[in-house]
């Protein structure tokens, strides 16, 4: 079987999602039977030319980013938005709550004029995206599932049900029973309730389900005495730039 050439690119992000690939271990060895990595800053130094699949990490935050992602899109047959920043804008989206000039001054201080910035965008707000791997960081079993779909030419649909479904499968004690709030009920599953399995709340890193009942979630959170402003911050932490567009099966 001919190996598919895959290139990783990063935009505004922490590169933590790429690190997840580097941490794959044996699975990566199996994967490398199927794909050839031609560009991957996190683990290799040489830069190779052609690629069929572009795995894009990070959100689009400058004019230069916009030009660069368009070029990548032109070259790639398949483009995968990889990680929360690429899929929904991720935490970078919080920037959009503030005035752009203020943000620039705050970050770059007296050098602010040297830098260019635009409101944070998810990759699909600029170019067409074929596959999504949400999460902060991505959940590797899902990434492998997506790659298998790519290799077979099949669509992949990010689950459109709540993290709670998986959390209940795993029989975790519910955070709400402990008097702690959790965004699981309106967040897309697919991470096997990674955080709640480990005693943490769900922060909503995979983005909201396609039709979240935000009012109802707000009512629940209010009952826990959380001020409205905090609730909105909670919702916005990963979802400010945009909510992920559900892919429909063809």
């Amino acid at each position: 079987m001919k190996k598919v050439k895959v290139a990783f690119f990063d935009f505004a992000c922490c590169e933590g999602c790429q690190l997840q690939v580097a941490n794959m271990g044996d699975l990566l060895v199996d994967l490398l039977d199927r794909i050839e990595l031609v560009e991957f800053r996190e683990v290799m130094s040489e830069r190779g030319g052609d690629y069929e699949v572009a795995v894009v990490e990070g959100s689009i935050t400058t004019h230069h980013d916009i030009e660069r992602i368009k070029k990548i899109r032109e070259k790639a047959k398949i483009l995968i938005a990889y990680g929360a920043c690429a899929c929904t804008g991720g935490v970078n989206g919080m920037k959009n709550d503030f005035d752009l000039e203020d943000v620039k001054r705050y970050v770059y201080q007296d050098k602010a004029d040297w830098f260019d910035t635009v409101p944070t965008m998810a990759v699909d707000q600029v170019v067409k995206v074929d596959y999504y791997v949400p999460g902060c960081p991505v959940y590797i079993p899902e990434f492998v599932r997506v790659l298998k779909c790519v290799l077979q030419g099949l669509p992949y649909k990010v689950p459109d049900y709540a993290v709670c479904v998986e959390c209940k499968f795993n029989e975790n004690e519910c955070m709400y029973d402990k008097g702690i709030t959790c965004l699981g009920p309106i967040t897309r599953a697919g991470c096997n309730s990674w955080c709640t399995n480990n005693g943490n709340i769900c922060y909503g890193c995979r983005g909201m389900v396609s039709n979240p009942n935000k009012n109802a979630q707000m009512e629940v959170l209010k009952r826990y005495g959380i001020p409205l402003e905090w609730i909105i911050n909670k919702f916005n932490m990963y979802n400010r730039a945009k909510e992920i567009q559900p892919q429909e099966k063809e």
Partner: protein
Amino acid sequence: MDQYYRLNKTECREFVGALTSRYQVVAPVKRGEKSFVFARISSPDEIASPEEYIPTIIPPKKYFFPQRETILEYDAVAQRQKAVMEYEKVVIFGVRTCDLAGIQCLNMVFSERPRDVNYLIRKNKLIIIGMECWDYCDEHALCALMDNHLPKGGYDLFFSDLGDYHLIHVNTEVGEEIVRSIGVFTEATGEDLKRLQEFREKKRSAFDTGIDLSHPELMDLFANCEDARVWEELGERCLSCGNCTTVCPTCYCFDVIDEINLDLRTGERFRIWDSCQNEDFAKVAGGESFREERSGRQRHRYLRKFKYPLAKYSRFFCTGCGRCSRACMAQIHIKETIKALIAERAGV
């Protein structure tokens, strides 16, 4: 069979110990402050105290019909496929009467033709030891309203705590064999049975659900409630998290998914629990959904417990375990819903 034995409480540890040395045993164990799960135990100390234990997060249905279950392995190139059946001989210890009723409901569903072979094979390997409750476990339970607070079969052995000893009802040959091989039991007398009757008599007043409806009345309440305002109200509050259905002992919907291996040739087909509360559940090709509104999904859930199964299986599919109420962070509580329907019908 149909025999009663006594087990002194001082011998309980020995009994459970002997059981764990002979079988794989699962029993309710404490998971969090207020939550319990059925899990593998190796010593009697791991079992949650019967006074404390409320229905587990997921009912014992997970042993009959696991959350995720491989049903087929395939080789796409060679065009070969092999049905997969995974089962284990397991003793489920400490099953309450509500959950016994839940298993009976699922038995009916999965025995319908075409019969569900995986479920039925697994069912044959499971040994069930039931346990009686003497009072409501918490404010959410409604087993007495559903008439499931008393045992009605569906177990191999059934334990009733009568103070300093347990009275054990033997219901199957497998149960008989356990009693015979673990020699800590003594035969019960007429006195013991009388005592059991007295305890059960007391149950009548102890189990007060606060809803005064006979079964025909309950049937009637749900028979013509399609247009009730209650559903709109629930729809506004519901988050569609699916908890109410995932934890329900009589929900049995599943999805079937193929997953290929990295060799892009072999793979497996598995089934995974699904829920009528999920966005995609009633979607068909083209993206159209038959139940787009949350109100409709909530109504569907209730009618699946209190209306449809009566026509099909002649019984309610709510066991009264109260799990859906406990699991709902939006506080959509089954007792409140019933009360709201009663009030709405009375024109309040």
